[in-house]
């Protein structure tokens, strides 16, 4: 006898590609405007108004890209793993499409975190790269993204591709706490976390407020890009269904 788990109605609605397409279409304008405003204010504040660090000078301004990118690269990975798990357990199509969309997005953000870290490392540590626990675990995160992306795009059957990608992303989840605690477990050049839940940031508010704005801006950008990517995936996979055919026809009238 199998026990039937009752999930709330919205959970099953999430599984409907058409429902996701409609709701994301309504959410996109708001998130786009928020992302644009936050990033614009954040960048101007970060570059021209925030004070320089007394030790690192103006190279410190790289933090406003580096930290949001590093945080987002990890959040995106967790999201990809959760979406993968949902698609494995409940066979939810949209979850699989979200997981697939997270992979290239997260990979490019991980590249951004690594690249800005290297460029920041040069004037600060005197080296572009060191084989340090934080940097190495971040590089592994990038390889995991590339692996998941490759599985999703090269495995012939969509179902097998999704399952393989989900399993790899779930296994790779173990890397996330390693990234987080790498600065505490091993001796490292890398400085500890800027934001923690329990303590006030060590830097003055003129520095952390723009950083917080940038982090929020990156999250809004993430929402926009993820929705756009997932919508393309939905259109592609549902191209034979009536509602997508109708969308195509509607587009033709506009053209």
């Amino acid at each position, binding site marked *: 006898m199998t026990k039937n788990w009752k999930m709330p109605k919205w959970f099953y609605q999430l599984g409907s590609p058409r429902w996701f397409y409609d709701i994301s279409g309504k959410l996109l304008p708001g998130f786009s405007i928020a992302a644009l405003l936050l990033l614009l204010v954040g960048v101007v504040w970060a570059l021209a108004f925030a004070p*320089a660090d007394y030790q690192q000078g*103006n*190279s410190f*301004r790289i933090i406003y890209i580096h930290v949001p990118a590093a945080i987002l690269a990890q959040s995106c990975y967790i999201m990809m793993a959760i979406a993968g798990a949902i698609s494995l357990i409940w066979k939810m199509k949209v979850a699989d499409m979200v997981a697939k969309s997270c992979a290239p997005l997260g990979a490019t953000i991980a590249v951004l975190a690594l690249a*800005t870290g290297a*460029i920041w490392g040069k*004037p600060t540590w005197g080296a572009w790269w060191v084989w340090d626990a934080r940097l190495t675990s971040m590089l592994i995160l990038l390889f995991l993204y590339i692996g998941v992306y490759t599985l999703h795009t090269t495995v012939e059957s969509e179902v097998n591709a999704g399952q393989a990608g989900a399993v790899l992303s779930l296994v790779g989840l173990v890397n996330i706490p390693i990234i987080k605690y790498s600065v505490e477990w091993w001796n490292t050049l890398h400085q500890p976390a800027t934001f923690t839940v329990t303590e006030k940031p060590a830097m003055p508010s003129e520095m952390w407020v723009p950083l917080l704005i940038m982090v929020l801006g990156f999250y809004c*950008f993430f929402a926009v*890009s993820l929705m*756009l990517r997932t919508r393309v995936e939905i259109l592609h996979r549902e191209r034979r269904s009536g509602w997508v055919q109708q969308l195509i026809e509607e587009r033709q009238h506009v053209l």
Partner: protein
Amino acid sequence: MYFDSFSELLDMGGHGLYVWICYAIALAILLFNIVSPLLKTKQFFYHHYR
């Protein structure tokens, strides 16, 4: 503003190149992640144009 002049903002006390390259890479990567799905959406409707 933190800097006294525009040229000082560009120079960033000698760190200008490092800082500006980081922001340029960020712009490129964020734009790519927005433009790429938009182009794919456009292509989708173009290919299914009958």
